[in-house]
């Protein structure tokens, strides 16, 4: 029995997700508690977009449901259970497998195809695996399968292609203009949060120099210190613009700080070639007329968002093939698991029948001692084997069929019947 209970950005506001999230301190205790309280294997995935509990009781006919898990979550996080329950969804057996595969393959993510979730699923599994007896054969097999499927989806479809963050899209535009960065100067104007992220991406290009300017010298110093740059007084902005190859602007100024007239003066000072301006401030810091397609390449937040939108649009084309992979892999996992579950039972059944058949064949041989040729003896053995196969074929097929059907997980009626009828004990 496998069950996945949780909430995600789809149905739960961020305030509630924050309250239900498991930090490192709570996670270990929660996993142990789940194991002890419900006698099950457990993995908890807790990210900023989802909190999900995967619980498994191989061979059992019941497992905790959403109501029980709501009580558990409420208890763990000190919330009323009736506040938690409405946010929880529940998937069972094959649906739970499918859900995990979709989550790991980033088909259920806020940004489809994002690369973080596969790692987060793996970390959740590793955290549970590190604790004694929390993860057993079913979740071991399931989470390893999920990791393989996530990789397969990423490599076989284009779902992970392209850039989806504004800051990495900015670097794409810079790379269209420049190839070498060891002789380039980056000028950072302002100290916005988005600017920090973009600067992080730009720093990976390993520029020669980073200049930082801000109306507040302290803030300029702080940013410069953080990125290994050099603070420049705000009064020397024009001079810094003339020296820069890449400008990253992210001030909170209500009006453009660089007008065409001011830029003309800067250009007369410039001895360098092209300059790329990444204006990610809202309202914009640079007048859009500066983009001349010759020396000045100006890209603002809207241009960068267009890259992200185009990437997401492109990724949507790959959702159907990715879903097909998930569906096929879900079916494969369920069949594989069913075989694993009934494999030992069938093996014991066949072994028992083999022993009885061989005993009967021996007995017949004794009775007919010397009356049969070697060829007739072999034929007789073959016929007994065929009879055994035909008798067992029906029960084995029916059992396999039952294990593959969801209903079977609730009762395993045939499996139990088979055990009783043939005396197949664990």
């Amino acid at each position, binding site marked *: 029995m496998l069950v996945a209970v949780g909430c995600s950005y789809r149905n739960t506001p961020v305030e509630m997700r924050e309250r239900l999230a498991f930090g490192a301190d709570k996670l270990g205790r929660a996993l142990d508690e789940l194991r002890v309280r419900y006698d099950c294997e457990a993995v908890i995935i807790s990210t900023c977009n989802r909190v999900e509990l995967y619980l498994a009781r191989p061979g059992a006919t019941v497992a905790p449901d959403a109501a029980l898990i709501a009580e558990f979550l409420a208890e763990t996080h000190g919330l009323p259970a009736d506040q938690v329950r409405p946010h929880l969804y529940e998937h069972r057996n094959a649906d739970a497998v499918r859900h995990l595969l979709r989550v790991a393959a980033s088909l259920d993510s806020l940004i489809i195809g994002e690369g973080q979730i596969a790692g987060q699923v793996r970390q959740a599994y590793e955290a549970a695996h590190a604790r004694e007896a929390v993860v057993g054969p079913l979740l071991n097999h399931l989470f390893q399968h999920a990791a393989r499927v996530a990789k397969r989806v990423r490599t076989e479809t284009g779902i992970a292609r392209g850039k989806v963050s504004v800051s990495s899209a900015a670097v*794409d*535009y810079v790379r*269209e*203009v420049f190839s070498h960065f060891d002789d380039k100067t980056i000028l950072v104007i302002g100290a916005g949060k988005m600017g920090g992220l973009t600067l992080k991406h730009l720093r990976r290009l390993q520029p020669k120099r980073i200049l930082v300017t801000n109306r507040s010298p302290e803030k300029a110093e702080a940013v410069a210190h953080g990125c290994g740059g050099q603070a420049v007084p705000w009064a020397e902005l024009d001079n810094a613009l003339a020296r820069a190859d890449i400008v990253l602007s992210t001030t909170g100024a209500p009006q453009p700080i660089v007008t065409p007239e001011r830029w003309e003066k800067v250009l007369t000072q410039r001895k360098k070639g092209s300059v790329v301006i990444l204006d990610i401030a809202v309202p914009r810091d640079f007048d859009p007329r500066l983009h001349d*397609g010759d020396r000045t390449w100006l890209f603002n937040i809207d241009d960068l968002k267009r890259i992200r939108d*185009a990437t997401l649009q492109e990724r949507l084309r790959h959702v159907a093939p990715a879903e097909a992979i998930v569906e096929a892999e879900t079916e494969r996992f369920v069949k594989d698991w069913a075989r694993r579950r009934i494999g030992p039972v069938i093996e014991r059944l066949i072994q028992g029948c083999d022993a009885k058949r061989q005993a009967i064949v021996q007995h017949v041989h004794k009775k007919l001692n010397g009356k049969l040729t070697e060829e007739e003896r072999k034929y007789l053995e073959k016929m007994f084997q065929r009879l055994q196969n035909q008798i067992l074929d029906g029960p084995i097929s029916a059992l396999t069929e039952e294990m593959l059907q969801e209903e079977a997980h609730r009762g395993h009626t045939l499996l139990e019947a088979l055990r009783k009828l043939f005396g197949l004990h664990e």
Partner: protein
Amino acid sequence: MMFERVTVFCFAASYAVAFVAELLQLLRPRPVLRLVSVGFGCAGLLAHTIFLAVQRPGLASRDGYLLFLSWILAVFYLYGTLHHRKIAWGLFVLPLVLGLVGLAVLFTPERPAVEDSWLPPLFWVHVLLLLLAAVGVCVAFVASVMYLVHARRLKSKTLPGQGLKFLSLERLEEMHRRAIVLAFPLLTAGVVVGMALLAQSPRPVQTWTDPRVLLAVALWLVFGVLLYLRYSLHVRGRRVAILTIVAFVLLLVTLAVPHTLGGGGAP
């Protein structure tokens, strides 16, 4: 012998198929199309090489000169295609190769008035210098066209990675700079040697006013202006690219005009 049956059509057709595959690749990107393009490009270069080796068109003739020039550019195409696998290299270089081959076909094979073996060694130095300078002009032309197309796409803020893929503007400028820096001394030396040859001519007045001589000097002047703009006035980008295209057109006209020296053949 089988190699003697290799004609201009063989390699021109191969280059044309390679170009069509590049165009199709642009419309529907498929790895197989890139393979077809490279395969036919290689086949074309092989046939081109065999043709030059077996047929031995005279380097002193216009058609031979153009065929040698297009061969060097075909090598440049193949190198670029293999080196910059994701870049739309063939789309820009192959039309140039095909154009030069087409121009060579337009000129019926010329037989110089004087046999090649009778031409002075200085003449061959002149031809070789101008051939290498022409390669530089062609490479600078390709870089300029790519630069202009890429700059136009960026000006209209086409999304990176959408459609054609280019080298960065900086790389294209660098390629252009290297080409003209190499071509100018070669062109200068070629023109100087050519003038020395003209001075020895039995009819100096007529040869100095030869249209091809005047065009070669004009080409040299355009190149001079190009370098002056680039290095003294720090002019870059679009204007330099446009001037390079002018220089290339001038080169084509120069190559198309018959020459009195060497019996109408030489550059």
